[in-house]
């Protein structure tokens, strides 16, 4: 397991994707086939179920180290990861055990059906035979979570570099149906178990942010204007009655959206369409935050399907009955799409609305109104445009609503996870409500690493609590918070909910006396 452990260390330390790919390629060059297969499985969420409860592991560690529980928890909240906390707290190993990755995994799979006493004996023996870094890997194998900053796309790029096979084909292969114990590494890569011809996607056509005056775009009737949506941009492929959904990040996300697969299957013929997957309830588009609950789940449960139903807003058609339409004009593609759509019976598929307008100056109001139904703004597409590869200036523009902003004061700080676990990165903000403060938003993005470091140090000095993960701080640091939308909410104590809040600026020039009041925040709802 040393090679695997070294690979994890190498991947974790760098934030350069190329360095990660290089490390993975190097591992694939030396690892036994079975280990390679398990690595792919682990990194793509095909993990065996957890054989030992984390509470038991915590208990055993406390028995061995003789530490009181509060001190264990304090260590955990400082380290931010249970597997790592255990690995670091345990005494140095007295033996040395070296087994390949797949042997460890097979043993762990068998461990699942044993008694607690047998589990304890096995785990303690392993702990006593592994050094801290390998012990951490062992604990992670039990827990099954390998969130170490390697996306499927990165893994696939590494495999592509190693084998020379196209990345998208490999994506289909690794997402497809296989288990490490029933396929060889070469067969997996060459795609013995899949039909890549059916899943092969096209590169997405992307837009630039609008950088000119509308008047400079030319005549109004040369443009098709649609709403811009904040969901998962997806390419939905139906060929030979098989359906595939590719995300813009070129990951296959088919299994995450069974209702879209079902709805699309009803449409006749074979085709490739471009659209936005959105959380939609009672025909209203929900926030991206809601959609997020549906993402990267191992199982999409019935409950989740009911809680966050999704739908597809269709923008474009790229292929129909094996004919590539990308060089056909936008208007013609739209006609074909509308024609196909006459056959639609599903309520969760919708054509993206084409906004009717005569004069450019009508659009600004429409753009600003977009916020009220959770649209991000407008898309301007030239009617004569092809479906080009990637971004091309002048043909497709995105024109987003300006974010709303308020000034709020930080009242809680919490440590982040992963590479952010050493710093206070997640903050809660409040505005004035008469003589009290009321929470309005939580945000964790928008600041530089340097600012986060400075704030972390300030939190360390100004925290009211001494123990536990959340720190209440003196209401002193003021931030300009930007967000995409705001609405009344009964679930929130403040009575308002903001959409996609982030820190726009740290207002070192302002004090808590300068922050917004809840009344001025609510006034934003009325104004929008």
């Amino acid at each position, binding site marked *: 397991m040393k090679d695997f452990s070294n690979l994890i260390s190498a991947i974790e*330390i*760098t934030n350069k994707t190329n360095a990660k790919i290089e490390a993975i390629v190097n591992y694939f060059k030396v690892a036994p086939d079975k280990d390679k297969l398990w690595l792919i499985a682990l990194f793509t969420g095909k993990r065996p179920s957890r054989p030992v409860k984390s509470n038991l592991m915590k208990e055993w560690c406390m028995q061995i180290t003789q530490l009181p529980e509060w001190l264990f928890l304090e260590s955990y909240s400082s380290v931010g990861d249970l597997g790592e906390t255990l690995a670091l707290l345990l005494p140095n190993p007295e033996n040395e055990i070296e087994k390949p990755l797949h042997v460890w995994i097979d043993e762990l799979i068998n461990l699942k059906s044993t008694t607690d006493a047998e589990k304890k004996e096995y785990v303690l023996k392993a702990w006593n035979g592994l050094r801290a870094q390998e012990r951490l890997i062992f604990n992670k194998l039990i827990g099954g979570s390998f969130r170490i900053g390697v996306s499927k796309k990165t893994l696939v790029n590494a495999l592509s570099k190693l084998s020379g096979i196209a990345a998208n084909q490999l994506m289909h292969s690794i997402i497809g149906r296989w288990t490490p114990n029933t396929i060889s590494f070469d067969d997996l890569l060459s795609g013995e178990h899949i039909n890549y011809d059916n899943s092969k996607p096209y590169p997405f056509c992307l837009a630039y942010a609008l950088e000119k005056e509308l008047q400079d775009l030319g005549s109004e009737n040369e443009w098709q204007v649609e709403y811009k949506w904040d969901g998962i941009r997806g390419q939905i492929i139906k060929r030979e009655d098989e359906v595939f959904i590719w995300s813009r990040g070129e990951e296959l996300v088919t299994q995450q959206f069974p209702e879209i697969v079902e709805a699309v299957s009803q449409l006749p013929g074979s085709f490739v369409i471009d659209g936005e997957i959105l959380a939609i309830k009672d025909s209203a588009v929900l926030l991206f935050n809601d959609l997020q609950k549906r993402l990267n789940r191992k199982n999409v449960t019935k409950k989740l399907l009911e809680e966050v139903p999704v739908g597809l807003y269709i923008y474009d058609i790229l292929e129909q009955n094996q004919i590539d339409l990308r060089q056909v004009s936008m208007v013609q593609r739209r006609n074909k799409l509308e024609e196909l759509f006459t056959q639609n019976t599903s309520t969760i598929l919708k054509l993206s609305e084409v906004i009717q307008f005569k004069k450019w100056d009508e659009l600004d109001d429409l753009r600003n109104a977009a916020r009220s139904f959770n649209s991000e703004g407008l898309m301007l597409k030239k009617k004569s445009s092809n479906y080009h590869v990637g971004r091309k200036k002048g043909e497709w523009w995105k024109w987003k609503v300006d974010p709303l902003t308020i000034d709020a004061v930080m009242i809680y700080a919490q440590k982040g996870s992963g590479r952010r676990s050493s710093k206070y990165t997640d903050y809660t903000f409040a505005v004035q409500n008469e003589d009290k403060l009321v929470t309005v938003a939580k945000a964790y993005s928008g600041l530089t690493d340097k600012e986060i470091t400075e704030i972390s140090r300030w939190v360390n000095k100004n925290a009211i609590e001494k*123990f536990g993960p959340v720190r209440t701080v003196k209401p002193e640091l003021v931030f300009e918070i930007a967000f995409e939308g705001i609405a009344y909410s009964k679930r929130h104590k403040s009575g308002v909910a903001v959409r996609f809040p982030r820190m726009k600026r740290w207002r070192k020039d302002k004090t808590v006396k300068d922050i917004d009041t809840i009344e001025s925040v609510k006034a934003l709802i009325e104004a929008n």
Partner: protein
Amino acid sequence: MKFIKYTKKGIYCIPGKFYLDPWYPVDYAIISHGHADHARWGNKHYLCHNDSKAILKHRIGQDISIESMGYNAPKTINGVKVSFYPAGHIIGSAQIRLEYKGYVIVFSGDYKTQPDFITVPFEPVKCNEFITESTFGLPVYKWKTELELQTELQNWVLQNQQNNRTSVFLGYSLGKAQRIMKLVEDVDAIFVHSAIANLNDAISSSGNQLPASSLITTDFNKKDIQNKIVILPPALLGSKLLKRIPNAATAICSGWMHIRGNRRWKGVDAGFAVSDHADWDGLLEAVKATEAEKVYVTHGSQAVFSKYLNEIGIEAYELKTEYGEDELAKQDTLKTETVS
């Protein structure tokens, strides 16, 4: 606290009329070691260990009023017997032992119990009251031995050389830099930043031998540096100088690097847990060895460590000080220093 008290300016010895590592200017300051959060500017008179004298003069001013003495060589100030004992933290670091009317208080300053290749090893001192730091006061902190670190650092350099990369270590210019030099001595030529070179001169001037090194200037010749070893202060992470170094592989050397999240935070190629502070077991051993009746816990995990000491039957209190709660504070001090 008998015969000492905690004041706004720092820890004050009442009969002795002097302060220990004060954070505001005072008449008489006894300094545990040369780091900027302990040895501050503006005091009328300084007393420190012999090996810290040149360091303090370099950092604070050549014309300061300063006297120094060796380890275990007491001096009486206003009836208080003052003596220094090795703290094992950096060159010249001392625990300050105060004895008045038979009652003994020891102020640890910063300390490390594990021996390294360059510092006089830590020596426990029996006392009635012990004032201890707690920078790494959590049981997850457990350091490797100096020999293990030596292997780790040297292997990293050799591996970098195989990949045609230059090894760049980032470590605080006083203490850490010299320790790194010693750890990688004889592997290949060592280049150091001027902030480190100046301190090296100060350290050598008091008779301490350091491994050979050359100065890296902003207009260095890339060919000279390629595949060699470079040591820079942490504030130079992301600097133009670092960017100019050909095929640099960067590593931060700090106790904080023991935790993965910290290693990943900086976006460097490696992180080595080389700490000048005691680890959890080191802190506990040190406290127990003093046999102190009362323990005061300063900068770091004072809440956790003092709570734990009380649970294992050692009377302990938290003491809030202005000493750097982490090494990042030191980096800032250093930044202003390099600019001026």
